[in-house]
Structures are given as C-alpha cells and as structure tokens.
C-alpha cells in the first residue's frame, strides 16, 4: 500500500514538473513571438499612434485598411509580384539545371568527372558577398542592370543543387533505369520519366530552400534593381525608410506581407524541413 501510494505521489510530482516545464517554455516562446505581435499591431494603427509617446501596447483604433493601402499605394503589391517573379524563376532554373548536371554526375561516365565534382564542391566555400562586385560588373557589361534577368541569372546556377540531386540520384536502384535502357529509352527520357518522379523529396527540398533564399535575398537585388518599379519586397521595404516622414504603419504592413510565404511554408512543410535538417545533424562534420 505504502509503495503504491509513494509511486502515485511520485507520478503526480513528475506530472506537475512536466506541466511547469511546458508552461515555462511556452512563456519563452510567447516572448520570442513578440516582434511578430508588434509588427502586426503597429501595421493596423494610424502613423500618429505608432509614434505616440508613451507607447501603447494595443491600438486605440484598428485601421484594417492599412494593408490594402500598403498593397496598392506604396506599392507593396508590385514588390510582392516582383519577388514572386524572381524567386520562382531562380527556383525553376536551379531545379532544371541541377537535375541535368546531377544526373550526369550520378550516372554518366566521362573523363574528369570526380575532379569536376570536387571543383563544384569547392565553389561552395566562396562566400556570396565576395562576388557581388565582379557579378555586378558582368551584369553591367551585359546591359542587364535593372532587369529581371540581371537579378535572376547570376544566382540561378549555384552548385549546391547539382551536388544535392547527385546524392539523391545515387540512392535510386540502377535496375529501375536499366530496363528502360534495354527498351532503348534515351538518357533524357529516363531522367524525366523515371528519375525525377522518384526524386520529388530531394527536388522539393531544393525548391523550398532556393525559393526561400531568393525571397529573403536583399543585397543582390538592392544592387541590380536600381528602379523603384523593379524592387523586390526586401528592397522595397528599405525604400520608404529613408524618406522624410517614415510611414511606419505601412512599412509594418509591408513587412508582414513579406513574411507570409515563409511563415506558411515553415508551418506546412515543418516535417520536410525537420527531416532535412536532421540529415545535416546526422552527417554533421563527418
């Protein structure tokens, strides 16, 4: 009886500790989310209220129309469209180019293959910010400053995708394509109708991370897109910051708009993201 009672008391204590632990981390998480809260509640105030002293935690009057105004007048709608064009184009080109080269590295024999792969891997060590000056000069020489192709092309040929897809293609059993080869299918056909459909997890991952990297990219579009109409969202957000009278409410609305796709993707694809990062964790440093 006493041991049973003791066990029960013990169980109750661990349960209480669990709840306390959970509650404490929930509190930390809520504090962590505060900047999102501040952004959203300031997006729906009048600018006078944003700048009011002392600060009010919640708006007096909710100006829901701010979002529509930021979308049409500033024009964050236009910036949003530009960001979509740039991010989607870079993603499509990256997946196309990396599938072809990844297949060549994984399945085709040609002289110097391993050396070329090593060279591709070596380029991953070059920090992006180092290349912006020569890249700008190249884009300038090609007459592509302030054009979409000028922003898109120089960042669409990263070598990481080739490597990622090569690794995945290697894991696909060779027998699957040998049958097709005996039937006389070309390599391109095998790639398109056998390998790519089987590689959707890897291609999805490459698309996701390419899209997000471009959606969030700032320095490169800042340099290339000199005209306001062509600005992507991050560049657009900084355009109104330097004006005489900063309209913080509209900027907060724009910031919120710029965060929507990433937040949706992070929540909806959390399993894919976790699995890919846990792959990194498993390989870490090895």
């Amino acid at each position, binding site marked *: 009886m006493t041991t049973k009672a003791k066990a029960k008391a013990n169980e109750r204590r661990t349960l209480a500790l669990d709840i306390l632990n959970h509650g404490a981390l929930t509190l930390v998480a809520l504090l962590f989310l505060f900047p999102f809260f501040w952004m959203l509640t300031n997006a729906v105030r009048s600018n006078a209220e944003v700048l009011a002293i002392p600060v009010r935690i919640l708006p007096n009057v909710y100006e829901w129309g701010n979002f529509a105004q930021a979308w049409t007048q500033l024009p964050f709608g236009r910036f949003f469209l530009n960001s979509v064009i740039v991010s989607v184009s870079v993603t499509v080109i990256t997946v196309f180019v990396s599938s072809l080269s990844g297949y060549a590295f994984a399945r085709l024999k040609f002289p110097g293959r391993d050396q070329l792969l090593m060279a591709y891997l070596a380029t991953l060590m070059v920090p992006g910010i180092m290349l912006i000056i020569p890249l700008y000069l190249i884009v300038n020489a090609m007459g592509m400053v302030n054009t979409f192709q000028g922003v898109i092309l120089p960042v669409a040929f990263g070598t990481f995708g080739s490597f990622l897809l090569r690794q995945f293609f290697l894991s696909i059993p060779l027998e699957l394509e040998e049958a097709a080869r005996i039937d006389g299918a070309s390599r391109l056909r095998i790639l398109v109708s056998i390998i790519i459909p089987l590689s959707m997890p890897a291609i999805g991952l490459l698309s996701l991370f390419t899209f997000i990297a471009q959606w969030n990219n700032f320095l490169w579009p800042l340099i290339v897109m000199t005209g306001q109409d062509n600005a992507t969202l991050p560049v657009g957000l*900084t355009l109104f910051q330097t004006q005489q009278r900063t309209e913080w409410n509209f900027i907060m609305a724009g910031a919120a708009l710029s965060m929507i796709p990433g937040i949706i993707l992070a929540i909806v694809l959390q399993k894919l993201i976790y699995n890919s990062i846990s792959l990194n964790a498993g390989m870490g440093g090895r």
Partner: protein
Amino acid sequence: MAVVERTVGTKNTVTKRRKSRLGAGEGRTAFFFLLPSLIGVTLFLVVPIIASVVLSFTNWKLLGQPQFVGFANYIRLFTADPQFWPVVRNTLFFTFEYLVLNIVISLGLAVWISSLKRGQRWFRVIFFLPTFTPGIAVAIVWMLIFAPDGFFDFIMRSLAIHIPSVLTDQNLAMQAVIVVSLWAGVGYNTVLFNAALDMVPANYLEAARIDGASAWDRFWKIRLPLISPTLFFGTVMTAITSLQVFDQIYVMTRGGPGTATATLGYSIFQKGFQNFQMGYASAIAWVMFAMIMVLTAFQFWLQRKWVHYDN
C-alpha cells in the same frame, strides 16, 4: 589454335570498340547534360572569382580605364585607411559575441525542447519562423522596437533603467544588431541540435540513469559528446555566415554611429557601390575571404580537442 586465337582476338577488339563507342556516347550525353550548369558556373562563378582577384590589384572606379596598381590597395588597407582596423575589429567582435551567444542559446533551447514529452515540433516551428522570413523585414520591425521612445525605451523606463537610445549609442548599437541577429538566427541551430539530441540512443541515457548518473552528468558526459560533431558543424557554418553580416546593419545603423557597427560586409558595399571603388572593395572582399578561411581552419584544428567521433 591460331584460328581460335584470332577469333578471340577479334571478339576482344569488337567488345572494346563497342565499349569505347558507348563510352564516347555517354561522354557526349554527359557534356550536353552538364552544359547549362557549366555555362552558368563559368560565367557567374569562375569568371567572377578570377575577376575579383584581378580587380583587387587595380584602381578601377567603374568609369574610366582601370589601372594595374600592384599591391597598392592592400597596402592602403593595412597601413593608411583609418577605417579598416575598426571595421575588422567590429567584424570580429560581432562574430565572436554572436557565435558564442547563438550556440549557447540554441543548444539551451534544443535541450529544453527535447525535455518535453509532447508538443516538441510546435516549439521547434516557433523558434524556426524567423529563419524563413526576410532578414530585412525582421530588422525593420526591430528598428521600430528600438526607436527613440519606442517599445524598448518604454520597457527600460518602466524598469527604471536609464540608458541612452540604443541605435545611436557608440557601444549599444552593436549590441542591438547582435540581439536582432540572434532572434533571426537561433532557430536553425535550435532545430539542428534538437534533431541531433533526438538521435542519441535512449538506452545509453537509461543505462546511465540506472548507474546513478545525474541529469547534469548525463548531459555533459553522454549527450554533449554524442552531439559534438553536429555542434561543430553548426558552429562552423554560423561563423562563416556571421563574418558576412550585412542586412541588419544596412537597415538599422548604416554602419553608424560613426563607424561603430561598420563591418567588412558593409564596407564592401560602401566602397563598391557608394564610392564606386571597385578595386579597393575587391581587396576588402579578399581580406574577408582570408578571415573566413583562417577562422574555419582554426575551428578544424580546435575540434580535435572537443569533438568526438564514434568510429
């Protein structure tokens, strides 16, 4: 015999020829498959890398003819430019403080999350959210928080702490940049370390518990050594990205006040695209590359002392 030998011989050459023809066909396919990638990589990666080296030995100012100036850019950087050493100091200061805090906080959060019986994934998502949002938007939101008489000042005043407005203060501005960078950056490492902790075999911990090891000992003697390869990976990657810090600084301080938050990344932008000194900015870029290489090599040297591999 001779006949047999001859037939064998012909057979060999036939298969060899067919093999080499097949090989050539495969080589040609490989060439076409690699062509788009090779063109892009050559034009937008190989040529820029070479151009960057060459540029760093010229005085090109975008307009006019570039002139070869030898090591003049580097000599000017190291001996004459009054901004260079403060910028290097700021970059190292940022990298060191940010790196240490990022690893400590993300490891702490990862351990904390892994102690939960349920709901782990929701906490992972919450801390990961800023990783997927534009750094510029994050920095702008924090700028409003740190604005004079803004939310941060309001909290400080409520707590009766008297400090100057952070973004315009010589010392506090960098601290503000670090806070913002941490908020935006701890999520990735939190998920990374949490995933590594998930992979620690439960029976190791159970065996240690039965042997009477405390939670503290289990962490320092079992979990931490087992995830040290991942910890090392996270540290190296975080160091490389933090040496290139730019976005937060561009939005929040533009390198100011004075040069208090000017980093190498910001310097490259400023010299290259505001002063149009393309050659000089390229020299700064190579100094940054050298620093990245040295820091990474140092970490690889250091890992022998603390990273455990199980093979």
